């Protein structure tokens, strides 16, 4: 007759890290669907490629580190990283971009720092930044929405472009990106930025076909998809509301102030919210618990800082989008933020409360 000894509490809500990760992956589906709808198969191919690479890389490093492979390989964290990286990459980027990025994210950013729970930086964003700096050409070949393309790109066309650089018909990425009218198209953020340097006002830029009716053809829907996924996560309590909330508010406030001051050279608040990777960053990147702040107050500061950085980099920096840079900078600041935002323990510093 054996007695079962366990430490209290004996009850557990039966939540698991892997379940949490799975939930987050599911929450990306609306955004990915929107991406697929507007930009074709490119990102799906990249996601698949990234996930495969990530699993292989994770398996290799785990076996080198003598870790429990089965439990840790499928805890979902590597897959989530790969998915996020795949989403972030330009749809027509060459295959090796994904491979390199994925390996870097898993092997270097995550495992070399001690694996899950110990990485100071968000692996997907660190890999993205690494790729952007190392391979600027490939990393800026953004594909315009399908509706703006001169040709019709199918799955096999995309696959061929990603793996060989050319469609079966022999078109290069540059040719694909070329508008019917004969100019190369960029992302809405890029367009606005370029136009501003050309002396055009933001209002004039908004007439660009890339931007479409609202804040960017396709991009607005992708962001809406990620917002939907994020709300789902909030509803499931998989993420805490604080970080996305403070990030979005911060971005809103910054752009609003700028817009009030200089409406001609500043984009609208909603343009900032619904272009680029804003929603992805708000709900899927910044909420990464490992590299973020932990306390409520800390998360508010963390989010606000990220919002400010995103706005600054978008408007004054050299790169059109800024989520990745902002996230990495905030990751660096997170321990410091945590240090100074410790909650007051019950029964301590009662004087300060009153």
């Amino acid at each position, binding site marked *: *007759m*054996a*007695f*079962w*000894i*366990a*430490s*209290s*509490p*004996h*009850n*557990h*809500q039966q*939540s*698991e*890290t892997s*379940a*949490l990760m799975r939930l987050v992956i599911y929450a990306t589906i609306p955004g990915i669907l929107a991406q697929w709808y507007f930009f074709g198969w490119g990102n799906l191919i990249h996601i698949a490629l990234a996930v495969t690479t990530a699993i292989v890389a994770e398996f290799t490093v785990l076996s080198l580190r003598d870790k429990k492979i089965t*439990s*840790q390989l499928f*805890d979902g*964290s590597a897959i989530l990283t790969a998915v996020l990286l795949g989403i972030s990459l330009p749809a027509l980027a060459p295959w090796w971009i994904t491979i390199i990025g994925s390996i870097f994210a898993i092997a270097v950013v995550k495992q070399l720092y001690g*694996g*899950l*729970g*110990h990485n100071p930086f968000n692996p997907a964003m660190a890999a993205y930044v690494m790729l952007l700096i190392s391979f600027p050409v490939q990393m800026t070949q953004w594909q315009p929405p399908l509706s703006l393309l001169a040709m019709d790109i199918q799955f096999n066309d995309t696959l061929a472009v990603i793996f060989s650089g050319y469609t079966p018909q022999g078109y290069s990425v540059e040719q694909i990106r070329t508008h019917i009218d004969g100019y190369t198209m960029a992302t809405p953020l890029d367009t606005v930025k370029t136009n501003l340097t050309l002396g055009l006002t933001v209002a004039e830029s908004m007439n660009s076909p890339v931007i479409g009716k609202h804040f960017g053809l396709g991009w607005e829907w992708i962001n809406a998809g990620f917002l939907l996924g994020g709300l789902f996560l909030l509803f499931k309590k998989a993420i*805490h509301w604080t970080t996305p909330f403070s990030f979005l508010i911060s971005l809103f406030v910054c752009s609003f102030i700028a817009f009030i001051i200089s409406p001609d050279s500043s984009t609208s608040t909603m343009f900032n919210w619904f272009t680029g990777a804003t929603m992805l960053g708000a709900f899927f990147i910044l909420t990464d*618990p*490992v590299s*973020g702040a*932990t*306390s*409520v107050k800390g*998360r508010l500061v963390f989010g606000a800082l990220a919002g400010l950085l995103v706005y600054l980099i978008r408007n004054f920096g050299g790169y059109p989008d800024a989520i990745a840079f902002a996230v990495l900078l905030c990751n660096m600041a997170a321990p410091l933020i*945590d240090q100074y935002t*410790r*909650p*007051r*323990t*019950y*029964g*301590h510093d*009662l004087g300060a*409360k009153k």
Partner: protein
Amino acid sequence: MESVIERIKKGNFSHFHGGIHPPEQKFLTSTKPIASAQIPEQLIIPLRQHIGQAGKLIISVGDKVLKGQALTTIDTPMSLPVHAPTSGTITDIKLMPIPHPSGLSEACVILTPDGDDTWQPRKICPDYKLLSKENILDKIANAGIAGMGGAGFPTKVKVSTLSKIEYLIINAAECEPYITADDLLIQEHSPTILDGIKIIDHLLSPTNILIGIEDNKPKAIDALMKATADIDHLQVCVIPTKYPSGGEKQLIQILTGQEVPSGVLPSSLGIIMQNIGTCFAIADAVINDTPLIKRVVTISGQALEKPQNIWALIGTPVGFLTKHCGYQNNEKQHLIMGGPMMGFSLPTDQIPVIKSTNCILAPSEIEIASPFSSTSSKEVECIRCGQCADVCPAQLLPQELQWSAKAKDQAQLAKLNLFDCIECGACAYVCPSQIPLVHYYRVAKAEIRQQKLLDIKAEKAKVRFEARKLRLEREKIARAEKHKKAAEARKARMNSGTAAAKSEKSAVADALARVKAKKAQANKAIASSDNNKENPATEQVDSGKSQVANAIARAKSKKLAQQEQAQLDAIDTQQDNESPSSLATKQIEPVVIDKKAKVAAAIAKAKAKKRQKETTANNTDSNSESERNDSATTQSTSNKADHETIDTAVTESVNAPESANKTLDKKAKVAAAIAKAKAKKRQKETTANNTDSDTDTNSESNSESESNDSATIQSTSNKAEHETIDTAVTESVNAPESANKALDKKAKIAAAIAKAKSKAKSKAKAKSAIKSESDASLQNVETSTTKIEPSQEPMKNAEIEHETSDVQSKVNNNTADIDRKAKIAAAIAKAKAKKLANNTQKSSSESSKQKLQQPEHSEIVEAKAKNLEAENKKARVAAAVAKAKAKKLAASANKSTHSE
């Protein structure tokens, strides 16, 4: 600002941070009535069931006890008694596993019930208001009531607080899942509970009484509402269900909005909290005179057929209760005492129910698959999701605590307020990484406590060490001070010129002499090598022989030293032996001075050592003579006489006999002078006899046994032949006769000296002989205070003469026959000793007269005459000693022969 009561009346409550909503599972037992107590076969009653110390045991094994009878009494403020839950026999008092997470054993009383359940006489008190407060407090204390919510804090301490109480909070929250003990107790016994509340009210007179109860117990709320409707200042506060609202601090925050500062008791805020079960126990104790011997325990869990609440006797083994409820799980038992959140696993089902046990949980495996068991840990890395911090009611940062706990960073743990953790388990409950956070905290807490203990120990040790160092330092200083004072005093005394001062001076002089003697010995070695050069022919042989002789001398001196102590009393009479030895040396006329010198040095060394030991004893005797001693020593020292001489002189002076007079002073000086002279002579190859005799005479006076040795040794070394040794022995024995024969002047003188020493008649002859020598001898004689000499004179001359001649002839003829001679010598010695003894008595009067006639020695002789009788005895002893020595010498002579 609305008051707390107004707010509560409106149903607005404060909130505590965090909290969780685990499945309640209270339906399992909440609808069933409390089953009545069953008496198990055996009750295990731990002596300590509360926070504090165990009471003093007042029963012993074999005692019959009645139900409610106290087993222990209060002997410290934090102790509580335990009582017999039923009547029966105390069958054992031993260590048993107690209900504690550690599973440790503590002293328990084992009670075997007799089944009669006979109550001890009780005094029902229908109106507690007739009792004084002290009386009520006594009753509460003697009933052994401790907090029944889980912690087990002694209730008497809580209710006897002196602070002004604003809120009395009755905790009926029962926030842990599964547990319905309080719920059922309220449902069934609200009147009694109300009595208990009234008693506490009476004791503490709080401004408000608040009953905190979670909204998941509608029946209990109804019952309470009804029971308390007529009390104005009592509020039943129905609070939202959230774990852990039943925690003291949490409930206080919910009801009053106040936070209890860390490390402070709520009473300092004017708040007292009592568990509702405790109220029932208080009423029972005060009104019904019933000690705390039973309580409601929820037996729940899906592994039970009939989960229910039971009135369990304190001490009932858990297994008895689960069996009663139909426990089915036989393979992998998981019994939890307490709720699923804060309870602990039981290592066995023989753990007893105690005062604070509110629940026994017997879950099925699916029901509570604890992620934190020893066998199925699914712990993964923390991903810093922060959910733990969100639910922590103490607003701690569990994930940071966890890291610090893993890293054993105690400073950081303290900074993160680890000790404010109430171990509610909310963090671990929500942790997606399934980290047993509470377990980490418990371990860390234990480690910190341990470390604190060690620190205290180390601190104490340090203080002890410092104190010791200080003390040693103080003592050192004190000692130095003392020495300084003593030195000053001594100096003063020495300068004062009293006798005592002189003795002290002499001691100093002795020490000086000894040091010099050692130096001189070192020099002597050089001198001997010089001597060897002078005598190239004998050099090699001599050196070899001398070494042997030295060895022999040393060995002998040691032996003799041993004997000497025993013979100290009889020392005087031994002179007989000594003086002959000196004679013998004279007769032998050794060829090699070297040897003698060396031997003498060795002897002197040995003697010096011995005498040092004796000195103290002798000093006391010869205080008066110290003057003379000093002079002798100083003289000899200043004269740089032979080292041996110095030594002997020193020793002499030290051992100078009582008879020392002023005249002796002079004599001593003379003797010293002689010694000096002789030493010089000796160095100049004067006969060793002189030196020997000198040394002998000197040494004799000190300790005759020693001088005996030295004499013998000298003789031995002189001839370095066995025969010589023998003859020496025999001679020494026959010394008086040989002296009579007057071989030559020196011999005579020596003999005279020897005789004098050996109480032979030699004094007269010595006088006539070289004056200095005789002086010395006289001196020695005096010192030795032997008065046998005169008496012996005629006797020996007459009777012993032929014996001596025989012996001598034998010595001459049969030099090789050592053994024989030795024997003979021994025999002679014996005989002579006898004779001497006999003669002494006869001629004692005569001798005294003779002495008186001798003007020089008159004083001495007088002194001697006084001691005559005592000396007779001594003479006999000496004879015996002489015999023994003779034998030994013979033996050693043999040995030396062989070695050579």
